[in-house]
């Protein structure tokens, strides 16, 4: 399955719903999406990864790039993920310390509100 990307607003938070496979081939599409959102002034992003079937280190790189972009505007990038096989690569690379990872979009939005 290819990569699917949708976004919606919840207050001043932007939810990016990602589905399918994020790998060396599809990661550039996610990167462009994040760049477009930040360029349009969306600095508080919640990336919903519950429908992601595959994520590799190239995809991690794009997420780190997005985090650096929103940080430059004092924004935030939070992840929603409960899938063990996706979480595993965050743990292996030590990125669980870099990204706030939430179980639901509601939790991520609420956490952003108080940040």
């Amino acid at each position, binding site marked *: 399955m290819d990569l699917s990307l949708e976004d919606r607003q919840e207050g001043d938070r932007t939810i990016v719903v990602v589905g399918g496979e994020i790998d*060396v081939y599809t990661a550039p599409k996610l990167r462009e999406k994040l760049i477009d959102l930040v360029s349009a002034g969306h600095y508080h992003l919640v990336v919903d990864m519950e429908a992601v079937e*595959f994520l*590799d280190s*190239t995809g991690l*790189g794009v997420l780190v*790039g997005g985090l*650096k972009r929103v940080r430059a505007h004092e924004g935030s990038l939070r992840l929603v993920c409960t899938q063990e*096989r996706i979480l595993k690569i965050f743990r292996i*690379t030590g990125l669980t310390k870099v990204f706030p990872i939430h179980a639901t979009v509601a939790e991520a939005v609420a956490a952003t509100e108080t940040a």
Partner: protein
Amino acid sequence: MATVELLLSALPAHVRTARLVGVAAARRAGLADDLVDELRLAVGEACSRAVAVNAEHAPETPIKITVRDDPAGLTVEVTDAGPESGPLSDDVEDLFAEDAVDPRVALAVLAGLVDELDITSTEAGTTVTLRWPLPVRVS
């Protein structure tokens, strides 16, 4: 013993093909489901790295993937045409550059993911070898 061998142009689009072939061969060989998930990620990392290495050092040279099963286990070899990557630095975020993740990250992921990992380099290139145990078959 059964072998599957693939030659792929060093293009990102083909990495998915390598994952699909690796998973199909692993399932056929009887690899446990949780290890198939591990193999999918490991083959993806090894091939992403090989594609990046060849794109830099030998863009016309294909990467080679071999999947072999025998009573000792399942072996996947991914061979590129470049040198082995050096050691990792400590700053995790710096390794994830905007346009291309450092090829060493793939090796770090592989080291954390796969119990049996070998990396050998010759003048012709580098081979990453991954191994998984297969269930004992009753004949």
